[in-house]
């Protein structure tokens, strides 16, 4: 069912050499390609038939779920609504990702809406990679949305990466944090050519002693454009930080707007933002260690997006 092309895409977006062990759901061209459940992790199609519901039993420790999506059919715009219900006290890794192979001139796209309900004291690591390739001129669009609800003392770490080849991306991340919960969002986006990427983030620190850290790293090459917006709203005693850095290369453009909103007197919110070319002192240091200018640029970008 999966051909060589599919396997290449899976390798890039989900680090999968073959069919994964444990629970997984592979979606290909808008349809279910393959699925497996485990004793603690159930996956079923939702009632509206618009996506899947992944249910992780309370106390599930050290298990993972792979839910990659691959597209290789010209003209297809795949929309999917997935829900993750993570039981209290569990500790799991969820690996999502979308790979597009565009062979024709018709546009291809995927809009994935992922909703997470993370139970008390549960820990989730969510890894999402987006990538597009192929010789076709069709526009490749990826518009992901994540909505995260953290119950008391839950902890979520999100790694959101757009590696390359995506022409248009409009991302929305929303998180609402309960008491004692924490979220770390690490977003890395690299654009080139005439690509556009926009990321909007709405984080609400609703519960007492909740903590959030949003880190965004953008590399903007060619004539591409990236916009980054993040708003952190504090409704209780909490700590929140936004760090957004953009490196501009060639003629890239960028708009970065971090916003902090305190609706509680004990809120501690901070942000740091920077836009600029690669710092000259970094380049000179690496060149003085024997790298050429181009090697130094690559090494700095590689570290920045790590």
């Amino acid at each position: 069912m999966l051909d060589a092309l599919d396997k290449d895409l899976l390798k890039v977006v989900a680090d999968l050499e073959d069919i994964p062990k444990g629970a997984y759901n592979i979606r290909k061209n808008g349809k279910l390609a393959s699925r497996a459940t485990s004793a603690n992790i159930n996956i079923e199609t939702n009632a509206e038939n618009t996506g899947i519901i992944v249910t992780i039993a309370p106390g599930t420790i050290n298990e993972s779920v792979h839910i990659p999506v691959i597209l290789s059919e010209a003209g297809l715009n795949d929309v999917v609504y997935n829900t993750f219900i993570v039981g209290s006290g569990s500790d799991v890794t969820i690996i999502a990702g979308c790979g597009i192979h565009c062979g024709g001139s018709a546009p291809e796209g995927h809009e994935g809406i992922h909703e997470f309900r993370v139970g008390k004291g549960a820990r989730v690591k969510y890894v999402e990679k987006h990538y597009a390739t192929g010789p076709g001129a069709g526009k490749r669009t990826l518009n992901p949305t994540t909505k995260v609800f953290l119950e008391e003392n839950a902890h979520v770490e999100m790694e959101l990466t757009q590696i390359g080849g995506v022409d248009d991306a409009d991302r929305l991340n929303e998180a609402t944090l309960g008491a004692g919960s924490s979220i770390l969002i690490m977003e890395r986006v690299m654009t080139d050519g005439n690509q556009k990427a926009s990321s909007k983030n709405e984080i609400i620190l609703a519960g007492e002693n909740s903590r959030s850290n949003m880190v965004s790293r953008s590399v903007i090459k060619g004539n591409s454009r990236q916009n980054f917006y993040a708003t952190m709203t504090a409704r209780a005693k909490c700590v929140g930080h936004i760090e957004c850095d953009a490196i501009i290369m060639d003629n890239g453009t960028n708009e970065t707007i971090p916003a902090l909103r305190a609706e509680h007197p004990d809120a501690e919110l901070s942000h740091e933002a920077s836009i600029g070319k690669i710092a000259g002192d970094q380049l000179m240091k690496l060149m003085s260690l024997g790298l050429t200018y181009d090697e130094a640029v690559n090494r700095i970008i590689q570290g920045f997006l790590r």
Partner: protein
Amino acid sequence: MLELKDLYFSVTEKDGLNDNQKRDIIDGMSFVFETGKFYAITGPNGSGKTTLARLIMGINQVSGGEIHFNGQDITGLTITERAKAGIAYSFQQPARFKGITFRDLLSISTGIDDEAKLISLVRRVGICPLSFLDKAVDATLSGGEIKKIELATTIARNPKLAIYDEPDTGIDLWTIGPMVSLLKKEQMENHTTTIVVSHNKAFLEAADTVLIVNHGKFVYVGNLKDALPILADFSICNYKNCPEGEQDARCFR
């Protein structure tokens, strides 16, 4: 091994009257550095010491004159080409990165990524504890920590010529002695030609030759003993007509 031939570095600046006033930061310097010797370059702030060091590494381009290294004219070479020729440079204010660790810099510096070899290298350099290996070389490092890392990445190059620009800035008093011994050891064992830009007496004492720079020129070349009166002259009060006994703070600068 390193020859400076009538070196100039000029900048244009505004001085209130003229928009394009030319100023020579390096004003005709000539000198031959000999293989395996230890040189200390000192002089008042703004005299041109760092600029000279940067010209040798190729970070700034000379306005006039030539630099020869082991018989080759390197005046037109890039930083990379000079590094490959065997020149290494410790920056006065080392770069801070995002997502690059001490281990990464050592690997780039040596081409080695083997764990055992990196550990033995860190041990050889001595001033950085092993726990530094996976430290990010970013804004979280203290001034002293980053200078130690900077020095280690320079020594790791096994350079023929090592230039250290104020290596002791931010370094605790207990580390300066070992740092001087380390540079001396590299000089003795590997015949590294060593140039240290410093105000610190410990480095001046370690040097075979002391060079004093003022207003972009070498004003003294020789041993430390004879340099001391000149250095004392730089450090004393520049206000010549201080009346004796007057408690003028400026006199004690």
